[in-house]
């Protein structure tokens, strides 16, 4: 077990579910910037993590991870160094993340994406869903959302995948795969957050699955320079969008036109991935 019981996560926390996947890595060391995970990991002098953990300044995670991985390699020690990041990966840490991908640093980056800065009280981020209400976008977000996984793949790194805490077996499979590859590995995990998105704590997994079914989140992999839409997303029919959106308080204000616009955007993303798969 990676995360010990009796930790500080909120009820129904998706990060807590995601942590389970780390137990499938050999010799894991996890590094984390400021965020919900920092608090879940435990306050001094206690740690809620059974594996070694290094807390680092917000933007620094990929670079410190790589330094650690290189330092250990220099000392002849094997490890799977994991940069466990949140929304900051696409904002404050974006240049360091891209730099790390460019060098093909030997680290695994796992982005546990709850689509806003939850730890500071639900502020809008680069991954916040279209039109979602946050405390800094009280009338709904107007900016784009950054598709960081696709951008990482365009750095031609050895392994990139998207995953969801709603489909843990798929996520674990991807983590295991990443653990056996050398170089820069990136997994972007969809993490619906009960207090941040406004739904009951029992529904974290249910909402995550709805996102996959309506393609608001699409599962895919990029390895050996090939894109492949994951089986779960291929089987998803792409319906239930309205139900997915309106089951969250942050999106309950959407008009029918808003929903149609989101549907168009999702279709564009789906088509892009289908094209990439054909390459």
């Amino acid at each position, binding site marked *: 077990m990676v995360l010990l019981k009796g930790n500080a996560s909120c009820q129904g926390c998706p990060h807590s579910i995601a942590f389970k996947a780390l137990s499938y890595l050999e010799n894991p060391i996890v590094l984390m910037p400021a965020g919900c995970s920092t608090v879940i990991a435990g306050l001094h002098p206690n740690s809620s993590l059974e594996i070694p953990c*290094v807390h680092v*300044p917000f933007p620094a995670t990929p670079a*410190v991870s790589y330094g*650690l991985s290189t330092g250990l*390699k220099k000392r002849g020690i094997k490890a799977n160094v994991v940069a466990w990041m949140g929304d900051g990966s696409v904002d404050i840490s974006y*240049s360091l993340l891209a730099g790390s991908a460019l060098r093909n640093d030997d680290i695994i980056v796992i982005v546990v994406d709850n689509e806003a800065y939850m730890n500071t009280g639900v502020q809008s981020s680069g991954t916040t869903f279209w039109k979602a209400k946050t405390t800094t976008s009280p009338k709904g977000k107007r900016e784009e959302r950054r598709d960081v996984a696709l951008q990482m793949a365009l750095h031609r790194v050895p392994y990139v995948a998207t995953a969801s805490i709603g489909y843990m077996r798929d996520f674990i499979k991807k983590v295991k795969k990443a653990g056996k590859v050398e170089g820069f590995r990136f997994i972007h995990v969809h993490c619906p957050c009960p207090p941040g998105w406004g739904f009951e704590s029992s529904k974290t997994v249910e909402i995550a699955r709805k996102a996959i079914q309506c393609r608001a989140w699409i599962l895919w992999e990029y390895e050996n320079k090939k894109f492949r839409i994951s089986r779960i997303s291929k089987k998803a029919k792409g319906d239930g969008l309205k139900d997915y959106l309106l089951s969250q308080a942050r999106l309950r204000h959407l008009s029918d036109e808003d929903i149609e616009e989101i549907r168009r955007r999702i279709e564009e993303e789906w088509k892009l991935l289908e094209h990439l798969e054909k390459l």
Partner: protein
Amino acid sequence: MGQKKLLTGNHAIAEAVKIAKPDVIAAYPITPQTPIVEKLAEMTENGELDAKFVRVESEYAALSVILGAISAGARGFTATSSQGLLYMYEVCWWVAGSRLPMVMAIATRAIGAPWNIHGDHNDIIVLRDTGWIIGMVENAQEAFDMTLQAFKVSEEVSLPFAVGLDGFQLTHTAEVVEIRDYELPKRKLLPHTIEPSSKFALNAVTSGIPKLKARHEQAKDLEKAKEIIKEVDKEFPVSYGGLVEEYKLEDADYIVVMMGGWCGDAKDAIDLLRKEGIQIGMLRLRFLRPFPTKEIEKLDGNILVVDRSNSDYRGVLGLEVSAVKNGIKNVITGFGGMELDTQDFVKIFKKFVNNEIKDVEWWYGSAER
């Protein structure tokens, strides 16, 4: 006697780093530091130095990579200047707070705005509160020597060490430098070295008391570093005097306190004034942190502090020295590569001796204001 080479200050540092055998070097280019890491890149590429050279996308990443490497028990080095130091500033606090050793060279340079890529000390002084050991050298030989000593001192006290050398004045001028026969011990592992078997979290969220303790321990160990600096200086092939260098101080009625490359010209001015019978000498600060409080307390005479950096209307060294001694005079000058030669120092020192210097004076030399 070691081999002698004609080296710029930057290349003297690279030669010292080569002897220290760091495991990981990460750097981003910035003038006037760049030749240090260019040389180290060359050394690692041609196999002279068995280090991992990491080409990063920013100074923030450079120091972050080193933070990771030294957490893993490896030896790390980086170099920067000015804006670059500011860009990595957050990580400077984390390295010191994590109680990890490393060495960073700082080719000191002005900070914008307005743009200026030339020398002064306004960059390195920002490290004062971080917990880093901060040294400032006078010439290329001392740049070589201090860099080598820095690894030893830093690893002894588990605090990072910044070696400052004046941009262009020292970084880009060549001198004959003796390559010392000096061997560093292997880097020791610490109780908080991170390996897969380390069953703990490092730097988790603290409440008030452990945070207070962390800063207190760091401050105490920075004080202890004074003894280690002196000891390492003594056992080195050449001794500089520890935290300070005393120049013609024994009988001095007038004492100049300065640091950095321009001390050489100022010493020449002191020699000229001595010929005129004026009893003047210099206390050259080799270290800004830990601050040589005792050495300054001991001073007996009129004190003039000449600064290449300021905080509000006063010079930074002026402020530091006046925390120990009352009634000092403070001249602020030499910003942005403004050149002062021996004659400028003769003028300043004569004004000081004649009691014509204001308590704080911004010196423009013969230039029009």
